[in-house]
């Protein structure tokens, strides 16, 4: 059995549809610890030690958040900056080395917008490397990310499918 640490960054969790549904999908799985950053640190005052303790104690990390302006929300970005410190996560530190990293993210736009001819001008893959390389730089094992497009509009049926897949992926991490 492995322990999974889910870092969840949504500024208004109570108002979220897709992310809330996805997070609910992880309910009842043993050995999964979830930190909702905006609930824990409403004024952006991240408890770095507590986060690092949770990271050290786990075997796999999940980053779940919506995409705002082609990047993680401010809190998630701040979490990278404050928690993944030099000498601990990198630069001599290997606290995260070898741990698996799953990225679960949602985008409001339809997938078709992420295209050289679409409103967003680039394929979604072009926005992934920043996050991916953050994990890799800390010597984590980058897993195939999960992306849910059109998060406000997707049908409940589709949302359920993705939620089920998310649950299965996390279960697999726990079992590994």
């Amino acid at each position, binding site marked *: 059995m492995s322990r999974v640490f889910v870092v969840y960054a949504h*500024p*208004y969790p109570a108002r979220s549809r897709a*992310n809330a549904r996805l997070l609910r999908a992880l309910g009842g799985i043993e050995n999964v610890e979830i930190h909702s950053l*905006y609930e824990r640190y409403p*004024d952006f005052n991240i408890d770095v030690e507590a986060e690092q303790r949770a990271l050290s104690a786990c075997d796999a990390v999940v980053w779940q958040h919506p995409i*705002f302006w082609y990047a993680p929300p401010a809190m998630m970005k701040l979490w990278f900056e404050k928690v993944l410190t030099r000498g601990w996560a990198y630069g001599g530190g290997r606290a995260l080395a070898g741990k698996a990293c799953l990225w679960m993210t949602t*985008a*409001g*736009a339809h997938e078709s917008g992420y295209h050289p001819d679409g409103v967003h001008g680039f394929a979604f893959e072009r926005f992934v490397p920043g996050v991916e390389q953050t994990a890799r730089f800390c010597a984590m094992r980058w897993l195939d990310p999960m992306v849910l497009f059109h*998060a406000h509009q997707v049908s409940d049926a589709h949302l359920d499918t993705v939620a089920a897949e998310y649950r299965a992926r996390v279960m697999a991490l726990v079992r590994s």
Partner: protein
Amino acid sequence: MHERSLLTDAVVYLSAAVVAVPIFARLGLGSVLGYLAAGCLIGPYGLKLVEDVETILHFAEFGVVLMLFLIGLELEPSRLWQMRRAVFGGGALQMGLCGALLVLGALGVGLPWRAATLAGLALALSSTAIAVQTMKERGVLGSPMGRASFGILLFQDIAAIPLVGIVPLLAVEVSSHQSGGLAGLFKVLGAIFAVVVLGRYATRPALRLIANTHLRELSTAFALLLVVGIARVMERVGISMGLGAFLAGVLLAGSEYRHALETDIEPFKGLLMGLFFIAVGMSIDFALLRNQPWLVLGLVLGFTALKAGALYAVARLTKMTEGPNPQGLLFAAVMAQGGEFAFVIFGVARDARIMPGQWDKLLTLTVALSMAMTPLLVMAAEAWARRAGLADARPDDTIEGEDAPVIIAGFGRFGQIVGRLLFASGLRATVLDHDPESIEVLRRFGFRIFYGDATRLDLLEAAGAGRAKVLVNAIDDIETSLRLVDLVKHHFPQLKLVCRARNVTHWIALRERGVELIEREVFEGSLVAGRLTLESLGVGAHEAWERAAKFRIHNVASMEGFRTEKDIEKRRAAVRASRDQLEQQFERDRAELDEASGGHWHDDTGAPPRA
């Protein structure tokens, strides 16, 4: 002149005080000297506006009584118990040393031994009224020196009782004991017991009863009755009125009516104290002074020098302060005058015919003049201490680096938080406070503490206001706080002010003075409580934080608009408008947030992409 009405006299006293005191205060000479000068001016040797000095003096002694009652109110029995060493150790030492020296001095100027003993001991007593008022004005009453002085003054009050008692014994013709030994003692004990019982068990229910009538003047009347009544009873059994009132104050110190009593009595105390000082000024016998100027001058200087010297020795012996000590000098200056008890004792001595010739008058004059000299002596001691202090501190200063960049005025709950945050950030601060409770701890952590009134220019200068960068004005009294701001704006314009505002009115007053960094003391705490309430109702933690932050901005902005509105009616309208605006703002917030989680942004333009 003797037929004049009370009101005419009142007009004379009040005008004299209103004219003289502000002038002296303005000149930095203190209110005591102002009252004394007013007394000289209107007295029998000045404009002759008032003649019956002795009656006035006796009446005004109630000012001292009320003052001792108020001091007693501040001291709970447990704290009084902690002072026992200062009272009985320091007090006995002071009376012994000063008394012995002054008795020798009196013998030296040719008084017979009986008269010399009485005069020496009577002159060893200091003036509680002048000493306490002087220390209070300088804000040093709470310092170790102030506490030691106060302990000694208390002891003197106790010692004055037997002193008045032995006058008849010293009379040439010992006729009869005034208060027959054992019976007298029982009377005294009985009276004290009565005061304790009254203070402990009868006063509180009575105060409660009166408070329930909601008649403010009734509670004032009761407070006065309490103090004056107790003082009278005490006087009847031969204890000093002041001591009795002090005892009553101590007994009520723990009661919930303490503050009410304080506010009721305070104005009477102030007025009567002023009257007392005026009466002392009036009693200065300028005729005697004119006839024998050199004798009087010699007596005053000799007496003051002897007593001050002895007091300085007391300060050293009791280790009141360490090092080459300016505090010891200040102590000597504050206590070197003769006391109001001396007037009483010399009066009794005259009646008992102990004093030969004009000595009773001469000594009374000496005491009055020594009282008048106190403020001058204190200022001299302070000037000396400043110079000596600077000379001493130089080498240390260069090692320690320059003054702290921050001055915190007022070290109560508010100032302490500021100070601790600064200290935790590795910054040093200089603290000004008139009653610091935990001085020693602060010293140990490298804070520089100055006792005293932060609105005194010399204290600010000594604290390095000329070189500091920021002054944190955390004073809780609104008027003092504003006075400090005026002073800083005028004398230290380079100093950045961070101010604590007690309420909106205070906030506006600070803004009017051009202060930009102001924090209302309960605002942040209330906002956090509001956030926690929102969270408890299910609002997301981050969202509650955002709402509080928006509220803060809105609130400060509307206060700013409110401030610039002079017209009262318009101010009211502005408050209403700001309330409406707030509602609109909340509506808008809600709409925005709702749209953020439900809208489809990619078809619109402008809204940020969100999931």
